[in-house]
């Protein structure tokens, strides 16, 4: 959808990601992140017109868990807020729509989860349909293995290239103080490790993470007041492929391709792309679907392979591109978020700085 109002990301904060944060509940986990995102621009919750969060009751283990988490915002006097049972990237999309519609000029967006209290690959099997797939309780890693196998069979990728993606991502994460995994063993060592779910080895999989992120959006001059170089959202779109993945080609992502087209990715050079690929082989699918060239720096933060808080890792991709535009390191970038198994649903945003 083409924007009618100029809306930008003006602030971003995230947790220092860890495998498990047993000493904090979700409110305690995300509150300092929200505080940091607001403090960075000298704002308080009273400056925010709309608040939207992304989280999952399946991960929190209680119904309407996002209502409890509003304690982290300080929703008194009452605020306008909403929630999506999705990654925070989709909460950002809702907030962007709210601003486009003229119902708000500023928005706070956050996404978070603690995956550590449960068995994440098993919990994620509950995303599947209840008749054909769900009763088999397939875990998320073995499902991703089906996709990697299909790509290898089609000659699109091999295990060495997958290991190289893991190596490059986690080496890049050495420069990311928030990353959970920093640095990688050499590629030949990675390839000598046993399979987790053939053809995937542990290095091919994103880590399990407790964490979250927060972003502030603002329209027009307010964005210029709050940030010395806002990252303007030039296009944003999200699309979905069939949940019946036995009936689709797992080696491509038509929904990403369509979202990229609608968001206008091809309208200019892409300096940086942050792709939400929880498995190494998925980066290759996304790079092709987005039409990125070798000139684009992919996942300088390390991507989801360096830290993957469920419901936050997609929003973090938008935040990481914002950071690089704000610093002047990049002028135009692409952020991608995914949801569901095997890249089922995909969101693409084009962010740009003013010259």
């Amino acid at each position: 959808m083409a924007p009618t109002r100029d809306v930008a990301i003006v602030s971003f904060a995230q947790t220092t990601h860890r495998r498990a944060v047993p000493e904090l509940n979700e409110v305690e986990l995300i509150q300092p992140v929200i505080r940091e995102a607001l403090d960075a621009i000298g704002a308080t919750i009273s400056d925010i017109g709309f608040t939207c969060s992304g989280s999952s009751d399946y991960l929190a283990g209680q119904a309407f868990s996002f209502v409890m988490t509003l304690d982290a915002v300080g929703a008194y006097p009452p605020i306008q807020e909403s929630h999506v049972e999705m990654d925070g990237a989709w909460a950002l999309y809702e907030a962007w729509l709210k601003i486009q519609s003229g119902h708000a000029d500023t928005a706070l967006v956050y996404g978070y989860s603690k995956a550590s209290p449960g068995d994440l690959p098993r919990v994620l099997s509950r995303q599947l349909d209840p008749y054909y797939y769900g009763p088999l309780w397939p875990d998320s890693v073995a499902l991703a293995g089906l996709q990697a196998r299909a790509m290898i069979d089609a000659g699109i990728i091999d295990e060495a290239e997958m290991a190289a993606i893991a190596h490059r991502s986690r080496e890049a994460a050495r420069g990311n103080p928030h990353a959970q995994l920093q640095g990688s063993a050499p590629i030949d060592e990675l390839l000598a490790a046993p399979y987790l779910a053939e053809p995937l080895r542990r290095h091919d999989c994103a880590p399990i993470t407790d964490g979250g992120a927060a972003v502030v959006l603002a329209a027009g001059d307010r964005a210029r007041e709050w940030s010395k170089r806002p990252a303007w959202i030039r296009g944003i779109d999200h699309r979905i492929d069939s949940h019946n993945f036995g009936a689709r080609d797992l080696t491509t992502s038509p929904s990403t391709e369509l979202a990229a087209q609608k968001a206008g990715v091809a309208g200019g050079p892409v300096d940086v792309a942050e792709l939400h690929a929880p498995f190494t082989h998925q980066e290759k699918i996304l790079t092709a679907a987005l039409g990125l060239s070798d000139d684009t720096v992919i996942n300088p933060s390390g991507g989801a392979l360096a830290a993957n808080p469920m419901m936050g890792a997609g929003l973090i991709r938008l935040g990481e591109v914002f950071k690089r535009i704000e610093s002047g390191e990049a002028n135009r970038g692409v952020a991608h978020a995914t949801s569901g198994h095997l890249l089922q649903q995909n969101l693409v945003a084009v962010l740009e700085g003013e010259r």
Partner: protein
Amino acid sequence: MTTDTGGVGEILEAPLVIEYPFNRTTGPVIGAFLTGLREQRVLGIRGADGRVVCPPTEYDPQTGEPLTEMVEVGTEGVVTSWSTVTTPRDGQPLPGHHTLALVRLDGADTAMLHVVDGHVATGDRVRIRWADERQGLITDIAAFEPIRGGA
């Protein structure tokens, strides 16, 4: 195993198990497929482009139009992709090391997800092993098993 507790010391924990038992209405398409399994028959459905979708969906995967023509397919098929399950979890159909696979049954044009009892590779032929007691569930297919010695 030591857990990083963020310098807080001992963390108190209590177990929490959440289950939501439901009986869901399956409707004319999914219901027909599941009823077929009880009788050791597998049904697909003809898509808008003439291709047979199995397991059947109520709507065409591409165009979204409603589908109605049920088509019986075979109980043998070919593996179109596979992965290994080394440490099975609760609820999974087989207790030991097994294969998770997409299987395109003979007469179908799409693949179904299930498990294979044994090692297979893409292109291998497999057949359904039926559960002894069948109730109209996807697990009426206990597993697929490899057809050895060529087909």
